Structure formats: C-alpha cells, structure tokens
C-alpha cells in the first residue's frame, strides 16, 4: 500500500548525486524533466507503443499532454494549494492564446516575436485573474465556483462576438510559429523543436510552483485551505493571499495558452469551452490535489488515454470486426471518462492517486493522505 502511495520513494539515486540534488532541488526538477523528456520518445519506440503510431506522432502527443500538464499544475495552485474551486480556468488559457494571436497573425498584420509574448501572455492572464478575483474572492467557496464558471462563459461569448478583434466564430488563423536559432525550424512536420520548448516551459512552471509551495506564500495558501478563519487570525491577509493564488494560476494558463496558439497556429472560441476546464480539473483530481508531480502525471494520463488509448480501441475493434463492439465510437467516451474520474475519485479516493504529502483536511477528513510523510 505504501509503495502505491509513494511510487517514487523506492527510487534511489547514488549517494553523492542524491546529496547534490537535495541541496539544489530546482536543479533536480530540471534534471528529472530532462530525463523524462528523453525517456518518453525512447519508450515510444518499444513494441506495444511503437506499433501504435510513429515516434513523431507520439512526440506530438507528448507535447500536447505537456500543455495539459502545465494547465493542471496551474489549476492545482488555485484548487489544490489554496482550496478555491475555479471552474472557468480555460478562460485564462484562452486569454493567453488570443493575446499572442492578435499581435502575431495576419489579422492585424502584426508580427510581434513569440518570446516576449510568452511573458506578456502570462502577465495579461494574471491581470485578468486579479480583476476577476479582487471583487469575488471574498465569496464563500461554492459561490466562487459559480462566479468563475460565469467568467468561463463570458470570455468565449466575448471572443465570439467581438469579431473585429478576435475573428469571431472562425477565430484567428495563420499565427506565427516561434523561431529560435539552434533549436531547428518550428513547423508542422517536425515536432521536436516544440517538444523541447514545451518541456523547458514545463520545467520552468514546475520549478516556480514548487518554490512557491515551499515559500511563505505557499504556506499561507495551505493555511487558508485548511482553515480560513484560523489563517486570518494568525495574521495572514487572506484576500491578498487568495489573489496571489489566482494570479499565479492564471499566469500559468496564459503562459501555456501562448504556446498552444503558436503550436496550433489557430485559436477559436470553441477550443476554450467548459470541457477544457473540466478535463483540467479531472487531471488535478485524478493526480491528487495539492501534489505538483501528481497532477502533472494526472494530465498526461488523462490526455494520453483520451487521445491515444480510445482512438486505438476504435482501430483495434474495427480490425477484428467484432459485431457490436466495432460499431462503438470509443472517442465518445472521453467525456464520460471525466465524469467517472470526478465522481469515483471523490467517492473512493478524494486525495487522488498520488496524494499531496501534507495532510489535506479539505478533501479527506477520514483518510490522512500520507501518514508517514516526514517534513
């Protein structure tokens, strides 16, 4: 059971390396992501995976999965760390994407480079996060969920109707791809530059979020999540603290949104519906609220299951020609998957598959997530 709870605890590095990484934890994160980044494409060569699709297709899938991982880690800051339920998270993702699309597409004939916009997209999303959060964060938890849900509706409606600036229902196409000498040409044929870039972004996000978690700000978030009243009486400015969580979460979504726009080279309102918010929430719930690594893995699992496993089931059953099963479109089940993940996880294992180290009272009164965890 304990092995299941902490799968990575068994992993032992050589002593000097372990000591080095214990002192430089951010470097350890970067090294771990680099190692995973190398391992994943290699894994896609191995028979069961290699037979399904080409390595390039796998790399592409991993790239998109990494975008979802960033989203899940960002949402985790809001939901997992601070305990605020945000149901309109896709709106910030959309804002980042549109921020880049408007200034780097034929729509206005502008060609602002990708790299500064990566930061600008994050900042713009964060500003909207603060604008939404400032008046609403005083609300009780479930009201906040509805306000963010409303915001998640308002943003696509606005993008749809303000067609002079957003291209309306068609969206904005022909968005510039990033350019960086030495990383190769970013194109639709070659997934590798995008893969390297998204992993670097993921590493930045994980390092920032991990460091925040262990900082004074992160401890304040946790205190608010566990008991807002007690946190307030201990001198934490709860409104400022919640705003910080909202801003950081929104910034990460904006950051990922800019990359997403540059990868797909098109943004449209339909890409940012409620489904995106719910699938991200499913990843967070599945991975274990509050655990950065867990929710990242949760996002990878959710994305790979829906985009590859279900698709392969379709192809498989088409080939064997089983009477009834061949007629089923398994891709239809991806949304059921979100629903089932949310319901079953809440009923059976609210702390997630890979729970946070510190005990989360907010989600598990009965089940202390990791009893033996040392801090």
């Amino acid at each position: 059971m304990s092995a299941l709870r902490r799968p990575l605890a068994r992993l032992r590095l050589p002593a000097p390396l372990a000591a080095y990484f214990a002192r430089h934890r951010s470097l350890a994160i970067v090294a771990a992501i680099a190692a995973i980044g190398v391992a994943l494409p290699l894994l896609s060569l191995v028979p069961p995976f290699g037979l399904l699709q080409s390595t390039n297709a796998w790399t592409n899938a991993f790239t998109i999965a990494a975008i979802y991982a960033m989203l899940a880690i960002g949402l985790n800051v809001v939901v997992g760390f601070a305990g605020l339920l945000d149901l309109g998270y896709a709106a910030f993702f959309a804002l980042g994407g549109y921020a880049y699309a408007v200034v780097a597409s034929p729509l206005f004939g502008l060609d602002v480079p990708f790299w500064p916009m990566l930061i600008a997209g994050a900042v713009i999303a964060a500003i909207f996060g603060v604008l939404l959060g400032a008046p609403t964060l005083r609300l009780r938890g479930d009201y906040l969920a509805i306000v963010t849900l409303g915001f998640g509706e308002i943003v696509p409606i606005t993008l749809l109707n303000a067609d002079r600036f957003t291209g309306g229902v068609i969206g904005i196409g022909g968005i510039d791809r990033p350019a960086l000498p030495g990383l190769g040409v970013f194109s639709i044929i070659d997934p590798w530059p995008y893969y390297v870039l998204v992993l670097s972004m993921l590493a930045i996000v994980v390092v920032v979020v991990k460091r925040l978690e262990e900082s004074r700000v992160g401890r304040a978030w946790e205190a608010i999540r566990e008991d807002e009243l007690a946190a307030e009486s201990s001198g934490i400015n709860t409104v400022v603290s919640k705003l910080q969580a909202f801003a950081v979460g929104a910034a990460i979504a904006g950051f990922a949104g800019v990359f997403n726009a540059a990868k797909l080279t098109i943004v449209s309102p339909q890409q940012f519906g409620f489904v995106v918010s719910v699938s991200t929430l499913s990843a967070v719930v599945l991975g274990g609220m509050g655990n950065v690594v867990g929710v990242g893995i949760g996002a990878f699992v959710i994305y790979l299951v829906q985009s590859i496993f279900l698709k392969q089931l379709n192809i498989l059953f088409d080939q064997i020609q089983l009477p009834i099963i061949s007629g089923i479109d398994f891709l239809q089940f991806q949304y059921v998957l979100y629903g089932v993940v949310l319901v079953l996880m809440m009923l059976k294992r609210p702390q997630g598959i890979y729970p946070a180290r510190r005990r989360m009272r907010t989600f598990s009164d009965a089940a202390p997530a990791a009893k033996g965890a040392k801090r």
Partner: protein
Amino acid sequence: MAAQGEAGQVNTAARRGALTLPLAIAAFLAAALAWMGLEQFVNALTLGAIYALIALGYTMVYGIIELINFAHGDVFMVSTFVTMFVSSTLLGQKSAIQDLPLLGASLLITFALTIAFMAVVGAVIERFAYRPLRRAPKLAPLITAIGVSFILQNIIQYLVGPYGYNVPQLFPNTWAVDLEGVRVPLLNIFIIAVSVSLMIALQLFISRTRTGRAMRTTSMDRDASAIMGVNIDRTIMVTFLIGSGLAGAAGVIHGLYYGNTNFQVGYQAGLKSFTAAVLGGIGNTAGAALGGFLIAFIEVAAVVLGFSRWGGAVVFSLLVVFLVFRPTGLLGSHTGDRA
C-alpha cells in the same frame, strides 16, 4: 434600462415589508409590458416559467444541503428526452392534437410520467452520488456533481446521438386569443398557468405539510431536526424528488414550447436557472420563482434591444455583480458563513 431600475425597486421593497413586494412586482410588470409590448411580454413570462421551475430545484437542494447541484440542468435535459419518448413512442402522438379530451389526457400522462421518472432519477443520483459525501468537505460533492452532469450528458449522447431532435408539440400552436389586436397563443397561457399552479402547490406543500415542515427545519439545523425526530435522509430524498420532478415539468414545457431538444440544452438552461436562484436569494423558493422570471425579462430585453448574441454574457455578468454586492439575493435572508 427599465429592467435594472425596477430590480432596484424590488430590492428595497424586500427590506421594507411584505406588502410593498407585490406592489413592486406589479409596477415592474406594468413597466415591462408598456416597454416591450404584449407579445414579448408573454414570451418573457413563458421563458421565465421554465427558468423558474428549474431554479426551484437548485434553490431547494441548496437550501437543504448547501450543495450547488451542478447536475440539475442535465436532469432537466434528460427530462426533455423522456418527454419525447413518452409522447411520441408510448402515446404514439407525433403532432398537435386538436381533440380536447384526447389532448388533455395525453398532456396529463406526459406530465405525470415525465415528472415521476425524473423524480426517481434525482433521488437515485442523491442516493449514490451525494449521500456518501454528506459529511465530506464542501468541495467534494460539488466536484461530484460536475462529474454526474458529464455522465448524464454522455449517457444521453450515447443513447440518442449528438443530434437535435424534434419533440412532438402536442398542444396546437394555432390556438390563440386576440388581445387588443395582439395574437396571444393559448400554449403560452397554458404554460404559465401550469407552472404557476406547480409553484403554488410547492409553496403549500412546504408551508402546510409535515414533510414540508421537516424540510424547513432540516435546512435550518440538520442536527437539531434529527434530535426532534425528523428522518434526515428521507427528507433530503424528498427534496431531490420534488426538485427533479419540477425539472421534469420544465422539460415537458420546453418540449411543448420549442419542439426540439439536444443533449446540451441542460448546460445553458441550468446555468441561467442557477443565476435565477441566486438572484432571488438562494434557499428561498419564492425568490427562485421571482429570479426565474427576472432573468427571462432581462434576456428578452436584450433581444428587444437588438443584442441577443450578448444575452448570455449579460446574464452571467449580472450573476457576478449580484454575488459580489448582494450575495443573499433579492429575497434571501439567510446568509451562510463565509467560505
């Protein structure tokens, strides 16, 4: 805008006393009638009847277990398909029925079966998805409810496919009365009459019966009610039965009025009805009805003013503004603790 000015009046009226509220509503209705004309006025009332019936389910459930029952909009969606099944498959009626006794019997059966079926669906959801989490932290049942909403949508999508469907409009839409030169369909009058009678019946049930009293005490203090001999589980289940049944009635009405449905109608309708419940003061049944009509008037006003595409954004912005400045709503009195 007339709608917002009048909303302010209703707001202050709620504080002053019981007598001024009906007066404020009457003044609002008169102003709305004068401004948008009889035809749009009747449309708004009809739309409001649907929103109000759904909003009642949200507000009752929130009142008793403080859960935003996210799946409620999809319970409504399911009921539109149940209506389709009952009227076209069970009764074999594909179009309007001109014969009055037959029409009455068909409508009665459709309403009865749909309401009964949806009531059971609601109770089953409560039993298996929400009851195990009764003592859990608050976000857990809310997330579960989102999951249930997704599951309901996809069961329907799987069963019938992702297309729009025609629902038999049993009530002939050729029947109309002439009011000062404006043609008012009898269907609209029928819908408003049905929903208002259901709301009055609900008010009577809550205020006059033993079960209604149990519901009120349970929402005030669950533990104290349990000590006084109220069967909490049963009371909560009855709340879900009634709330889902009302959503079922709204589904029948939706079918009669629009004549079509698809597996996604629940999301928008649910969101707007929830907004209505918040506007009226969540937990307050009269407020939910009031809020439902108010939302409908705002939406119709947006259409009249020519920016119908922004109708949704207006409603949700209003929700945000209302939650920030008056989270207790128009009639709400009980303010929950923060967070």
